[in-house]
C-alpha cells in the first residue's frame, strides 16, 4: 500500500467511525423528539381540558347569576300564591259546608242541573287544591335547589372523614336503588377534609342515584373509589350503564339539563353538585363512553 493509500485508509476508518456516531446521534435525537412530542401532546390535552373547565366554570357562574335573579323574582309571587291558595282552600271548605246545609234546607228549590254542578264542585274542589299544593311544593323545591346552585355556602365546615360520610350516605339511598345494584367500595385511607358533610353527602347521593338510573333496568355495579393525590382527596363514582352521549356531555352540569324522561328529573342534581364542589374549592369532572359507562371524579383540597 502506497503512502497515499495509507492516508486515505486512515481517513476512511475515521469517517466510518464518525458516520456510525452520527447515526447514533440521529437515533438519540429521534427518541428525544418522540418524548417531546408525547410531552407536548399531554400538555396540549391538559391545556384543552383546563380551557374547557374554565369555560364551563364561567358559563355556570353566569347561569348562577341568572338563576339567582330568576329565583328572587319567582319567590315573591310564589309566596302570595301559596298563601292565597291556602286561604282559598279554607274558603272552599267553608262554602262547601254552607252549600251542603243550604241544599238540605232548600232541596226542592234547586234544579237538577245545579245540583249536579254543585256536587261536582264539592267533590273535585279538594282534589284540585291538593294538586295545586303538590305543584307549588314542586316549584318551591326547584326554586330552593336553584338558589342552592346559585349561592355560595361556606357555613358548617368541619374536618370530616369522607369515607365515613360515603358509608353513611349509602345507607340512606340503598333502599331506593334498583334490586340488582351492587356498590363496590374501594376506599383508601384519607386525611380529614374541611367540608360541609351534609352538602358532600348530597353530592354523593346525586352521583349514586344518577349511576343507578343509568344502569340496566334491574341495576348494575357501581364502584366508589377514594384516594389521595398530592394535597387533594379524590372521590370517583363509576357505573357501567348507558353512558352519556358525546353531544350531551358538555351540558350535563347545566341547570335543568337532563337526559332522563320528562318528569323523572329536574336537571338540577349535577348543577347543584357542581356548585357544592366548587364552593369547597374542588372540581368535579366526568368521563363517559356511550354504552360502556360513566365516571364522575370529585377532587377536594385537603387544606
Amino acid at each position, binding site marked *: 500500500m502506497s*503512502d497515499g493509500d495509507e492516508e486515505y485508509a486512515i*481517513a476512511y476508518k*475515521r469517517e466510518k467511525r*464518525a458516520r456510525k*456516531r*452520527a447515526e447514533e446521534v440521529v437515533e438519540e435525537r429521534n427518541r428525544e423528539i418522540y418524548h417531546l412530542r408525547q410531552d407536548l401532546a399531554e400538555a396540549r390535552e391538559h391545556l384543552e381540558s383546563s380551557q374547557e373547565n374554565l369555560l364551563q366554570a364561567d358559563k355556570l357562574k353566569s347561569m348562577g347569576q341568572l338563576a339567582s335573579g330568576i329565583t328572587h323574582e319567582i319567590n315573591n309571587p310564589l309566596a302570595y300564591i301559596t298563601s292565597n291558595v291556602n286561604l282559598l282552600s279554607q274558603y272552599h271548605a267553608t262554602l262547601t259546608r254552607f252549600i251542603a246545609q243550604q241544599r238540605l234546607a232548600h232541596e226542592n228549590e234547586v234544579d237538577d242541573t245545579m245540583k249536579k254542578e254543585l256536587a261536582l264542585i264539592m267533590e273535585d274542589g279538594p282534589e284540585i287544591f291538593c294538586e295545586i299544593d303538590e305543584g307549588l311544593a314542586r316549584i318551591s323545591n326547584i326554586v330552593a335547589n336553584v338558589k342552592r346552585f346559585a349561592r355560595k355556602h361556606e357555613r358548617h365546615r368541619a374536618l370530616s372523614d369522607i369515607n365515613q360520610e360515603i358509608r353513611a350516605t349509602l345507607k340512606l339511598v340503598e333502599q331506593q336503588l334498583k334490586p340488582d345494584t351492587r356498590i363496590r367500595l374501594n376506599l383508601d385511607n384519607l386525611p380529614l377534609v374541611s367540608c360541609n358533610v351534609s352538602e358532600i353527602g348530597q353530592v354523593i347521593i346525586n352521583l349514586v342515584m344518577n349511576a343507578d338510573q343509568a344502569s340496566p333496568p334491574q341495576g348494575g355495579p357501581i364502584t366508589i373509589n377514594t384516594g389521595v393525590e398530592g394535597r387533594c382527596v379524590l372521590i370517583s363514582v363509576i357505573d357501567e350503564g348507558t353512558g352519556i352521549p358525546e353531544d350531551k356531555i358538555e351540558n350535563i352540569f347545566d341547570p335543568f339539563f337532563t337526559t332522563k324522561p320528562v318528569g323523572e328529573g329536574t336537571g338540577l342534581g349535577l348543577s347543584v353538585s357542581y356548585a357544592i364542589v366548587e364552593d369547597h374549592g374542588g372540581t368535579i369532572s366526568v368521563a363517559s363512553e356511550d354504552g360502556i359507562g360513566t365516571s364522575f371524579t370529585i377532587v377536594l383540597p385537603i387544606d
Partner: protein
Amino acid sequence: MKGMIFTSLGDLVEEEFGIGAWNRTLARIDSVVDGAYIEADTYPASEMLSLVGALVEELQVPAPQLLDLFGQKLFFDLYRLYPELVDRHTELVPFLASVGTDIHEEMKILHVDAEVPDMRCDFYDRNQLTMYYDSPRKMCLLAEGLVRGAAQHFDKTIELEHSECMHEGADRCKFEMRLVPAS
C-alpha cells in the same frame, strides 16, 4: 465546543493541505474520539486548542494566519447550516452588531450546550462598529476571521483593527472595523 467547528477545521486542512496533514495533526493530539468528529456532538474546547497548536507545528503556519483562514471558512460553514440567521440582514454592520445578541441567543436555543463567546458592540452605524470579544477560550483570532468571512459574504471590503487583545493582558479584545468605500 460544537462539533461543527471541529469538522470545519478538518475540512479546511484536508482541502488546503491534504488528508495526510490532517491525519498527522490528529496523531499529535490525544483526541477523545480519535478525530472522528461529527457536527451534532460537542467536544472539549481544550481539544480545539490542542488541534490548533498541533496544526501550527505540523503545517508550520503562524497561528494568527491559520485562525484567520479558519475563521473565514467557518463563517461560510455556519452560513450553510443557519442561512436564515444571516439572510435576515442586508448589511454587514447591522449583522455583526446582532451576533453577540440575537444570533448567539438563538444558537443557545438551538443548542442548549452551546458555549458562545461574548461579542457585543457598544457603537455602530452603517459604516463602522466597535466590537468586544470576551471568552475564556481566547479564540479572538478566530473571531477576527469570522468577521472577515462575513465581510466576504456581504461583498464588502473592511479595515479591521484588533486594538486591544486578551493575549496581551487586556480584559477583553476590542475590534474596530470600518467599511472601505468601493472605489
